[in-house]
């Protein structure tokens, strides 16, 4: 699950970059930059949850 989280983090960044490179208008770029950031946040949450599952038990 942590790997999936990192995959989403990187995918979100790619969305941002592609939006800047490909989309023609300012409004579209802004929308996809925010969407990319949203994907990154989902990825971060997933990675944190994956880490949380392995915490504990080190007495």
């Amino acid at each position: 699950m942590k790997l999936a989280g990192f995959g989403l983090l990187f995918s979100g960044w790619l969305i941002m970059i592609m939006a800047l490179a490909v989309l023609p208008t300012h409004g579209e770029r802004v929308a996809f930059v925010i969407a990319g950031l949203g994907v990154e946040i989902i990825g971060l949450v997933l990675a944190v949850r994956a880490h949380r599952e392995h915490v504990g038990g080190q007495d």
Partner: protein
Amino acid sequence: MIATLLVTVVPNVPATLDATSALCVVLLCALPLAHAGLAILNTGLGRSRSAAQSLLGSLCVVAVAAIAWFFLGFSIQGYPGGPLHSFAAGSASWDWLANCSPFFRGIQWNDARPASVAAFQIFAVGLAALIPWGSGADRWRLGAGCAAAAVLAALIYPLFGHWVWGDGWLAQLGANFHLGSGFADPGGAGAIHALGGFTALALVWIVGSRRGKFPRQGPPAAIPAHNIVYVLFGCMLAFAGWLAFNTLGAFLFAGIAGPTLMLVPVNTLLCASGAVLAALLVARIRFGKPDASICANGWVAGLVVSSAVAALVSPAAALFSGIVAGATLPLTVEFLELRCGIDDPSGAIAVHGVSGIWGLFALGLLSRLPAGQTVAQLVGIGTLLGLVFPLAYGAYWLLNRVVPFRTDREGERIGMDLHELGAGAYPEFAIHNDEFIPR
């Protein structure tokens, strides 16, 4: 080869310093105060049985980072106006990497701007490398910490540093895509602190928590700072270094000169002051007492935010940014430990990572830079989160296979001082039981 490297690269040094060079030299000499402050603060926040290893490790990490950046990092990071690799995509040219010769070859030391930028960077990379060192306290081996600092200084830091400070694609967002003035980060809130904070998160996930921190049953154990005087003294020392970082950064990367430069130290102080008082108040309300380590971290969080905003916002906006950083810090620290299971003895992830991100975003919101600045800041934040963090995690994960990060069980039990250095930090230290009897 060695003879070539040793030959001086300063052919025509003027006999007298001009005012600009003098300012840069004075500020450069004050930069290590930030390193010293952070090192002492991290040592105080750790356990007494690992204090000497922590402080020695800080020295070693700064040294390794400087040498690794000199050997390789500089050729990746470069300087504004230097040679670089770029390619065209869409309607713009994307500058991804510098193309400088390693070992500072090719740099003109009698040209004030590239010389000042290179000198600033070799100090900044040490500060970035110190941030994860504090997070791995009490369990991270010294050799592994140095190896990780080398990776950070040779690969992770210069890559992002070039994009922000070397006229890379993030700095060009304004010119290429009409996003404000491009990603702005004059004092290193992103390039030093958020990068260091995310690297610290990657490290903590790989190295794991301290033994006994998260027991099978019950809440996480509190492992308090061993010397709060170190922690608070470190804050004061770091403040002086931060003034130099922010002022020199504003001069080099925001183009601020003349009397306007005096606003930078004022904003730095306002930011830190707002943050420490807000952290104190929230800690007082949340926990019943204003915990000193939380307040110290609040002060540093304000300094981190000031690295982004001090050069480019009004004093009132700087104070507001600091208050927000300080007010959220105790809650962030609590959230990371209790909800996310993250054992970060120095609080670097909250202080440098989260506050650094807030500072970058606040700069977009509160500065008077051209329209689209907030979006440019979001792209920079997204790059830190979506590329730099996974890169740091991947690099550290691989490095951990070669140089195991974590000490063994015995090392953690007796402390890193005895285990790695053979002697404790306080050999004549004795605990008197009666000092701890409730009165």
